[in-house]
């Protein structure tokens, strides 16, 4: 196919490839800086790491030396750093002081229920936001009502919403289980509690995006072709409204993870939330930092992917005009 492209188009191709490469490069740079920060955070942790590692055992010089050697603490900081990066590249986030197991294994055991919850919540939020924004964009009365609903959704703390849902639909009306993570019915209430604030933000953004699109001259052109208002909103407008949502990809991920920590606590669900909180309580620094680093990497991946997707949606973003 390439040979059919005019030189200008080929130049554009290579420019796009260049920008993708640059974007991936800066993502890697951020991940590397975050890892470095994480490494030094573990080493700057207050207290004597060796003492923590010995636990209840006898604190003799021989034991100290053995423990230091076992955890690689007898090497110089520079050697430890290089070793840390080498292990990170092979997917090793270190070992928990408290559980004495690799951080990745610990996370692997707990991640599934959290992923299920986050998936259900984001699907719910996207569906609700799309429906609300398409139905209310550019309509004076409806957008006023929707605006108040969204403001409330954004302002209600997810844990309180969770408590109220529990109170209404588990205690008062026994429709859903009070705690646990067995089956789809245990997912409904937590997903609503976690998804509602996100839906509020997305719906506002999508309506704004839709209204901007509908205000542009091309909307008149499309309607002048005989296209109905609904088709204009769904066929043309939504693609424009999707851009700000995609750009928030990283934010959505962070809100899901942060919110999940708390919502899991409300509903007594297993998952990363329980893991993080017990790690913070137990001052298990390698585990806390490992989880933080993992989520930082996932966040950067989300944002990078979001940029690539938005370039795919909007061709104008691929070739920004030089200022």
């Amino acid at each position: 196919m390439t040979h059919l492209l005019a030189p200008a188009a080929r130049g554009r191709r290579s420019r796009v490839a260049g920008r993708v490469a640059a974007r991936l490069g800066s993502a890697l740079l951020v991940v590397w800086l975050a890892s470095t920060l994480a490494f030094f955070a573990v080493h700057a942790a207050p207290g004597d790491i060796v003492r923590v590692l010995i636990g209840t055992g006898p604190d003799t010089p021989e034991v100290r030396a053995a423990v230091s050697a076992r955890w690689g603490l007898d090497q110089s900081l520079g050697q430890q750093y290089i070793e840390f990066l080498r292990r990170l590249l092979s997917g090793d986030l270190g070992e928990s002081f408290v559980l004495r197991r690799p951080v990745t294994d610990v996370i692997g055991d707990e991640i599934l229920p959290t992923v299920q919850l986050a998936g259900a919540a984001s699907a719910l939020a996207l569906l609700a936001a799309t429906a609300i924004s398409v139905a209310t964009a550019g309509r004076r009365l409806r957008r006023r009502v929707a605006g108040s609903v969204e403001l409330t959704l954004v302002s209600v703390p997810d844990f309180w919403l969770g408590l109220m849902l529990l109170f209404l639909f588990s205690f008062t009306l026994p429709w859903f289980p009070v705690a646990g993570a067995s089956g789809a019915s245990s997912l409904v209430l937590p997903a609503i509690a976690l998804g509602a604030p996100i839906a509020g933000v997305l719906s506002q953004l999508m309506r704004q995006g839709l209204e901007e699109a509908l205000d542009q001259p091309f909307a008149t052109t499309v309607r002048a072709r005989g296209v109905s208002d609904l088709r204009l909103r769904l066929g043309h407008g939504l693609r424009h409204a999707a851009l700000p949502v995609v750009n928030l990809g990283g934010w959505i991920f962070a809100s899901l993870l942060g919110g999940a920590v708390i919502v899991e606590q409300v509903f007594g669900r297993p998952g990363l939330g329980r893991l993080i909180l017990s790690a913070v309580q137990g001052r298990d620094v390698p585990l806390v930092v490992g989880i933080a680093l993992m989520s930082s990497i996932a966040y950067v991946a989300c944002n990078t992917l979001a940029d690539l997707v938005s370039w795919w949606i909007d061709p104008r973003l691929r070739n920004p005009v030089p200022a």
Partner: protein
Amino acid sequence: MTDQDPVLDLSGLTIDFGARRVLHGLDLRIGRGECVALVGESGSGKSVTAKALLGLLDARVATDRFTILGQDAAALDERAWRRIRGRQVALVHQDALVSLDPLRTVAREVGEPLREHSVVPRAERAAEVRRLLGSVGFPGGSRRASQHPDELSGGLRQRALIASAVAARPALLIADEPTTALDVTVQAQVIDLLRALTSAGMAMLFISHDIAVVSQVADRIVVLRDGQVVETGPVEQILHRPGADFTRRLVQNALEPTFTDIGDRPAPGREVLRLEAVSKRFGTAHHPIVAATDVDLRVHQGEVVSLIGESGSGKTTVGRIALGLLSPDRGSVALDGEPWNPLPERARRSRRHRVQQVPQDPLSSFNPRYTTRRVVAEALRAQGRPAGTQEVAAVLDLVSLDADLLDRMPRSMSGGQRQRLAFARALATEPDVLVADEPFSALDATLQAELVGVLDRIRQEHQLGVLLITHDLGLAARISDRILVMRDGVVVDQGTPKVLIESSDHPYTRQLLAAVPRIRTSPRVLR
């Protein structure tokens, strides 16, 4: 219906937005193969008419009679309108960059009316899109059709927009300022294309502020002003025997380029601005964008020197280098015989007031928190001069701005008032040189004529050297002492207006001259 029925028959169209009437009784009758033009300045009610004729206007619309192809359109509901839009009445808007969905390929945009009105079977749609694009002179077939509007040149975009409008073979095409955003050479091509469509039998309502463009396509002209019909008649009558003063002024502004006879002016004074071999590039080493190459330019006291060229020719870059806002890569600028650019900012600061600018969009050049008084006072104080009410009002008086405006925010003023304020601010520092970058292009014809008068007066009274940057050859010819023609960063031709217009043999200058829309001495023969 029969062939004798008009495609559009409209009488007594009035439009109200709340209590405000924006159109007072418009009559239009357009038959097959006929082109009627609606001419007026911005705010005259042209564009709301276009939307009303498509049933897309969110306002109170009333008519005495409104039929499309013999069918009563006054009482149609939304469903019925949808069958008419695109199929019987179609629309071509101003700039296709914003009038086509920027996220869709050209082929999908052209295909949409085909799908909406099931014009051809689904299987033949792709072929029909190719045929349509071919018929409007859109080259390259499938490859370019899969591009997005922003990847195409202005002319190609406009062709694609026209293809999408005529896709469902409408009987009436409403063209709302279809050539306004285009460079003159491309403008001429698009007008040819529209003329071909009417020759093929399509009825057209051509809406424009530019009577010169209109004179090339229209059979009849309706002149609108403030929602009132000023005058209606065949094109020949409107151009040669206009009945109303307003029409006469419109026609006057659009006549063949005329030039100043510099014999009228005193000999120019000392040289105030001199650019020598100025070059500038932008972009990266791999993708350099050349903005200026070896530009030489001189401006003397009391002289207007115009730099003309199409968009992207580098004329604005040269202006910013003259202002000392950009440094040249090579070459130098002298101000009043002393080095000016490149020079460290520290050494330049105390002389900055001697070169001032008048920008194209004055609003963005005012601090959004400043009132008129503060805008002018800051310029006065920068010179250490007193800036009381009296002094500020005196500066406003130079450009005939009323002292009532002292405490208004520029954004609440009219376009003409803002542009006057921009002139006033520039004059407040008593400069030697004024760099005016498209200072009139955002204004309509009447305001433009007024402000050209203001510029000419202050040039004379203050012995200002003016560097005028514009795309408008007609304007430059009327007010300049010398003109430099720029293309791709290079000055390709220069001379007095008289020499350029009468005897330049540079092909690009001739091309620009030929493409300037003007009222031809013999209007096209009416059918």
